[in-house]
């Protein structure tokens, strides 16, 4: 049961985007469509799970003072692996996400979970934490992407339900800020009722 709590906290209670406000740069930048949001979310999740696992395994081998540089190297390696795999097998998505793939490295969620969770907890807990947080992040990005795509392009996951142009501003940068603002406000309201 405890592990279930550990897993599910990332969705609503401690959602990295809506509640902890971490990793907002990719959140705003790549969510001009639902599919891009999902792709970015999954890429981040992969890095998060892998780095959490590795760091929890070797946490006792790393002297405290060089903790952060070691974490950065581990995270950066996994980011590069994601980069290479995406470039080879999903080139279209790789291009759509652009420099935000290498920028996963500076995403505060990944380093934050490594430092705040994986460096203290067991392997299994860290794995579950990475999965939960990663899914929460992917969920938030997909939701934001879906809302922006629906309002701005009249489609969801590329399936068009409005002919012609929609309210374009929502896929431009102002729309990103505004939609995220309203989603967080909605969630605040929702959290109070439960």
């Amino acid at each position, binding site marked *: 049961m405890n592990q279930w709590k550990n897993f599910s906290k990332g969705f609503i209670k401690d959602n990295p985007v809506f509640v902890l406000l971490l990793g907002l740069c990719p959140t*705003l*930048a790549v969510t001009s469509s639902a599919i891009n949001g999902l792709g970015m979310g999954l890429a981040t999740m992969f890095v998060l799970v892998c780095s959490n696992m590795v760091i929890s395994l070797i946490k006792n081998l790393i002297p405290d003072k060089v903790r952060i*540089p070691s974490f950065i190297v581990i995270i950066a390696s996994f980011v590069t692996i994601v980069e290479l795999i995406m470039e080879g097998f999903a080139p279209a998505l790789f291009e759509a996400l652009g420099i935000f793939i290498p920028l996963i490295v500076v995403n505060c969620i990944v380093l934050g979970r490594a430092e705040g969770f994986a460096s203290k907890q067991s392997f299994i807990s860290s794995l579950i934490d990475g999965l939960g947080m990663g899914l929460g992040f992917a969920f938030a990005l997909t939701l934001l992407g879906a809302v922006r795509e629906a309002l701005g392009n009249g489609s969801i996951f590329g399936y068009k339900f409005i002919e012609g142009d929609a309210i374009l501003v929502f896929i431009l940068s102002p729309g990103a*800020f505004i939609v995220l603002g*309203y989603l967080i406000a909605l969630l605040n309201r929702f959290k109070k009722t439960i």
Partner: protein
Amino acid sequence: MEYLIIIISAIFVSNIVLAQYLGICPFLGVSGKVSTSVGMSGAVLFVMTIATIVTWLVYQYVLLPFGITFLQTISFILIIASLVQMVEIILKKVSPPLYQALGIYLPLITTNCAIMGVALLTVAKPDFDLLKGVVFAVASALGFGLAMLLFAGIREHLDLMDVPKGMRGVPIALVTAGILALAFMGFTGLV
């Protein structure tokens, strides 16, 4: 003329925060007061310029000749992280007043994606030489500072406003940033 175009487009047209979505974390995090946002912008200007120079040199003279550009991500983040540490140590020794002004913002900068983002953007442009890269980095940092200052000014006023309960804090800040971004879109077509 070419430099002027780079400067104007980096500051106004494709502002690093409001149009490129880089450096959002400090943009929302430390923009509560005008004074702190000035300090943060100063630190960003400083680190961004040095980081761009060093990463450009490493990319051109180490990564490219050896054909190991796939190590770009890992080497850039290590360069930036150690650079920030070094700047901190040197500033402490050489210029204590400057260290007092910028010191507390420096550790935050390692995970500021604006620094890494500008470094990546600069090496991705084949027609950029070192000088253009530096101009681009400085202008981007100024754009960051401009957005921070404007936003901090607005947020100081926002504190005094009666905002609906659910919108208080981050949501209203994000909506404000959206409107600011909308205003910046007006610069489109300047270059």
